[in-house]
């Protein structure tokens, strides 16, 4: 029986395995360190950061739904410099590659945060959230309008030499044009998918369950949507794709990779089981061994469709 090699590359970023965590579900790094050996992960992806500190949404911010949850956290955060001061030192004790998810209210914002964080050697890559479904000042807009989308990708690209991962919005008629645009504007990789715009209402109070009214649906409920979007995006581009959406175990990761993903991210499942990402890594290695798959590359996009 072979011992599979799980190494993969996202642009110049080398990951010893294809498993990271989804931005916003794993805090800024320290929060899960008691439960997960961060150095086991292919990379840690932290909560979305913008140029300036941001207060985010009022509460309630999350709500549980059938096999999923809604979130409208609203991207609170310490801002680029705050992140560097408060959280970057923590990672000095670890070797795991660090991916920082960034967002902005304006194209300039995107550029500024990319520039500031791009200068940090401890940061391995930037994941650009153009698909945040719940920040009125931005997000959705950039992710669903092809022209705005291009300007943001170009702006970020022009401001950093680090690998940039463009995280696509799922709520579009077709994902391929956005995938292609990101690639042609110099993106190193794609992340598919962000949570899906949704809503729940408390029938007694007649108020939305979220202070922000709408939020993003995530978890196993959306997995079949995510798998399809990864499969379509993979047909459109040659850059790697980080697949996410409802991944709870090794089989889910294998499904995303077969659909065309080079790497995967565990999000909502961290909440029910912090050991999910490590289970996925161990399980993926076992699965590859059992199936005589030596390299993730050999599995990627092998769906017979």
């Amino acid at each position, binding site marked *: 029986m072979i011992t599979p090699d799980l190494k993969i590359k996202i642009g110049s970023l080398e990951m010893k395995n294809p498993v990271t965590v989804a931005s916003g579900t794993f*805090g800024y790094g320290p929060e899960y360190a*008691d*439960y997960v050996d961060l150095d086991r992960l292919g990379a840690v992806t932290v909560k979305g950061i913008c140029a300036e500190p941001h*207060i985010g949404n009022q509460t309630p911010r999350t709500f549980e739904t059938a*096999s999923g949850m809604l*979130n409208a*956290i609203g991207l609170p955060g310490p801002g680029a410099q705050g992140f560097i001061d408060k959280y970057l030192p923590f990672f000095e004790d670890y070797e795991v590659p660090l991916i920082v998810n960034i967002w902005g209210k304006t194209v300039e914002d995107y550029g500024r945060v990319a520039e500031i964080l791009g200068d940090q050697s401890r940061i391995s890559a930037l994941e650009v959230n153009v698909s945040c479904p719940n920040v009125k000042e931005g997000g959705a807009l950039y992710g669903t309008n092809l022209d705005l989308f291009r300007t943001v990708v170009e702006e970020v690209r022009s401001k950093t030499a680090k690998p940039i991962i463009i995280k696509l919005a799922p709520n579009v008629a077709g994902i391929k044009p956005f995938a292609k645009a990101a690639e042609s504007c110099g993106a190193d990789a794609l992340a598919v998918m962000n949570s899906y715009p949704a809503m729940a209402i408390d029938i007694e109070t007649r108020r939305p369950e979220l202070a922000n009214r709408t939020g993003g649906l995530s978890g196993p409920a959306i997995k079949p949507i995510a798998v399809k979007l990864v499969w379509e995006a993979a047909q459109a581009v040659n850059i790697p794709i980080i697949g996410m959406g409802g991944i709870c175990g090794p089989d889910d990761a294998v499904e995303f990779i077969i659909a065309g993903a080079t790497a995967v991210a565990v999000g909502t499942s961290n*909440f029910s089981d912090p*050991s999910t990402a490590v289970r996925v890594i161990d399980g993926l290695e076992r699965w590859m061994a059992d199936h005589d798959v030596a390299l993730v590359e050999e599995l990627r996009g092998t769906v017979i469709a």
Partner: protein
Amino acid sequence: MKQENTTVLEHRLFHGDYRQLTLAAPAIGPLVKPGQFVHLKIPRLGEAVLRRPFSIFKADDQGISILYKSIGKGTDSMRSLQPGEKVDLLGPLGNGFPPLGAGSTVPVLVAGGYGNAALYLQAKTLPVQGVAFFGGRTAADILCIEEFEALGWDVRVATDDGSLGTRGLVTAALNPWLEEQRSETGDPKSSGLEHLEVFACGPNAMLKAIGDIALENNLTAWLSMDRNMACGVGACLTCVIKRKTGTGWEWARCCKDGPVFEASEILWDEN
């Protein structure tokens, strides 16, 4: 803080609508401090992606126990738990209650609902026994009176329907007692109640009322806040409340920075 796959040792009706669930948790048990909680993954609830937080009622080197009431799909499905079944826990979580402050001589506990459970370990740990005020809708809602009296606490009860103790909210029992306690200090800036220190856990409205009383009388009051949680470990920013800062306020996470906050820190929201 640990993730532990625990085993149900005992599961029984405790009092009123409350059940006691006792879990073998040798990893978590020994670490527990008063006022901390566990984040429990509900077995056999495949459609639920979130855990549920429960205050730790009792703890020892072998494990922990919680008291819970079934109010929704998660706590409903917990009711079918059988001895021997596995229950995955994260814990102990949160920073719990602090020890009795230097200047304080009389600890005062104020609780409603599961708050009685949340305060038990604190009542057990405090160096002096003071007075415990328990509130609830009716007698059946008042938990652990015997347990607290056994620890040497003077338990005072208030129920909305008067079926036990004073009729009314817990404050109906607390306020008159506070007046008795008021000592003449001569210092105009003093409320004469600074020798008291309050530890409270219960419904939001009760905590707010206690908080207001504490501010008026510049008492130190530690309030254990109940907010919906997702991660339970500080990662998702679901459970935040507004904490006063010099300049204004900042978000504080109930799961990680709390659930216990000092009354004067809290900026109460309208909603």
